[in-house]
């Protein structure tokens, strides 16, 4: 067993038992990153010196008798979360050399807990995408088949977890960006409830749906990470005022031996959707069977308006992006066009050259949708349909404890397969955007493998479990129970 194969919980346990030091674990990861990152491009920045210094400090804290679930545990961070001492690029040329003056709240919490930050992971530029191909610094490759995408936008974090380039990672999810790559890479990903985790220091994209959450090798790891990063923050006034109880999530893991007494709703529209491939449908049906075997009751439910999730999302998201990305003006930080002769040109040239094609596309759609005369037809109408989507969920949760279904209609697709058609890429979010619009927690976990339709190696399939707002504990309990009953999460890619 190599140190880099250990998950978060096992790493902490090994450190606790003095089987190895944090410096040793960190070195094992840095060496593996050196070997594999050129092939995968999961990390944009590897912070070797900073990581080893943090590992030394963590070892010292343990020697003094301190203990903690993340003390000395090496993690990876999506590169749209600010870190003092390590650049934050958002995978954009406009922030290529950007150094933040402050740590994101989640980073402060991880550092206080003694976690080691190995580096910053690749993403679609500003998290705009579902494949990580929109990165200005080249796509990340899927560790299961390096000719395929890892999903996105947190593709670097998911690929790093799947290929043992870190013990666990943080990603962000606006309309699927944690869950989608988790599915494609065969790992666990949790989109937290909107407001559960502070976004201070997360580069804003769609402020009304952006969340930070864990991407891990196990449900237990996700629980440990969320326990550390969750809670209210005066620097983010959208955080939910109530903190989770001490140890709430770790305890949730051990509350259930089965799923007896729980009702699961399967949205009937999701299994009949065109484009759901036979291989994925088979694994989801098997997963539903596993839930039943564990004692869970499974019923059909209906989310009739969820099909409008994507059009709503692709009005609201570009609109909020056009406002949020206005801050990149070429004046206070970031790329600056030196050839500009007047103020307008400084803005237009810096932004025109600094942003990649998808960021510009979204800024323009948003600018159009919010412009005079179109606001009511696009943004306001989208927000009203969003209300109906939320009501769909409220109705369903009156009679079920969780919603289960597919995370993606198919397995990871080939690099380049969808880049020429932006609308096709937007449709990837079909099972993802509804939970984002409703602010609900949603867990994706390995549910098996399927061969791509066009042939090739078996690729991971993920099961999605959507829960009640702020009840991540229930998702951990259910997810852990499912994980214990299956072996999908044990299989690792050959690299």
């Amino acid at each position, binding site marked *: 067993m190599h140190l880099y194969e250990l998950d978060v919980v096992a790493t902490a346990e090994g450190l606790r038992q003095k089987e190895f030091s944090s410096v040793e674990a960190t070195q094992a990861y840095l060496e593996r990153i050196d070997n594999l990152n050129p092939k995968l491009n999961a990390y944009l920045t590897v912070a070797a010196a900073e990581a080893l210094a943090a590992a030394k400090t963590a070892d010292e804290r343990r020697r003094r008798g301190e203990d903690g679930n993340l003390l000395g545990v090496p993690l990876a961070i999506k590169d749209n979360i600010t870190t003092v001492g390590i650049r934050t690029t958002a995978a954009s040329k406009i922030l290529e050399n950007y150094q933040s*003056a402050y740590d994101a709240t989640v980073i402060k919490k991880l550092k206080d807990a003694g976690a080691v930050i190995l580096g910053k992971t690749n993403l679609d530029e500003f998290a705009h995408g579902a494949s990580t191909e929109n990165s200005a610094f080249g796509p990340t490759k899927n560790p299961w088949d390096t000719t395929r995408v890892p999903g996105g936008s947190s593709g670097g974090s998911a690929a790093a977890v799947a290929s043992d380039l870190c013990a666990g990672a943080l990603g962000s999810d606006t309309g699927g960006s944690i869950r989608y790559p988790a599915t494609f890479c065969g790992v666990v990903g949790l989109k937290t409830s909107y407001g559960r985790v502070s976004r201070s220091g997360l580069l804003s994209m769609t402020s009304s749906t952006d969340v930070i959450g864990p991407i891990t090798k196990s449900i237990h790891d996700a629980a440990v990470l969320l326990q550390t990063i969750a809670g209210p923050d005066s620097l983010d006034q959208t955080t939910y*005022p109530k903190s989770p109880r001490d140890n709430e999530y770790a305890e949730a893991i051990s509350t259930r031996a089965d799923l007896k007494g729980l009702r699961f709703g399967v949205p009937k529209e999701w299994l009949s959707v065109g484009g759901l491939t036979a291989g994925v449908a088979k694994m989801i049906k098997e997963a539903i069977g596993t839930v039943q075997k564990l004692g869970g009751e499974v019923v059909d439910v209906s989310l009739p308006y969820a099909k409008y999730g994507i059009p709503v999302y*692709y*009005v609201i998201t570009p609109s909020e992006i056009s406002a949020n990305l206005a801050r990149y003006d*070429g004046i*206070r930080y970031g790329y600056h066009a030196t050839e500009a002769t007047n103020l307008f040109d400084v803005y237009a040239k810096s932004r025109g050259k600094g942003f990649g*094609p998808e960021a510009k596309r979204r800024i323009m759609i948003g600018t159009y949708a919010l412009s005079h005369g179109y606001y009511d037809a696009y943004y306001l109408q989208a927000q009203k*349909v969003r209300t109906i989507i939320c009501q769909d969920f409220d109705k369903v949760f009156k009679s079920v404890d969780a919603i289960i279904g597919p995370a993606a209609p198919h397995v990871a697709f080939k690099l380049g397969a969808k880049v020429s058609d932006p*609308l096709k890429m937007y449709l990837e979010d079909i099972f993802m955007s509804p939970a984002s619009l409703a602010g609900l927690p949603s867990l994706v976990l390995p549910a098996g493998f399927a061969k791509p339709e066009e042939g090739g190696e078996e690729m991971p399939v993920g099961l999605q479990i959507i829960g009640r707002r702020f009840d991540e504990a229930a998702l951990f309990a259910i997810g852990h129970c499912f994980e214990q009953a299956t072996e999908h999460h044990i299989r690792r890619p050959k690299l």
Partner: protein
Amino acid sequence: MSLTREEVKHIAALARLELTEDEITRYQKELARILDYVGQLQEVDTAGIEPTAQVTGLVNRLREDKSILVDEEARKCLLSAAPDREGDYFKVKAVFE
């Protein structure tokens, strides 16, 4: 729907984005297709439905109105991020011509 080149240029100017001729051609097609797609929202009857801006239920949360000093290190970092500066000032082109 369709967008004219002039409309695309107008949107780009509002968004402060300089586009190449090729980009204008490309976005003219792509934006029209995307707007067509999201146009299906018009078929939903939303009479009497309130818009949802966010789902926390929290309203008008205010923090204490006091300034927070940043340390010298953060101050230096903030200033040195500026691409063009003079001393502790950010340099910008003339705002009024």
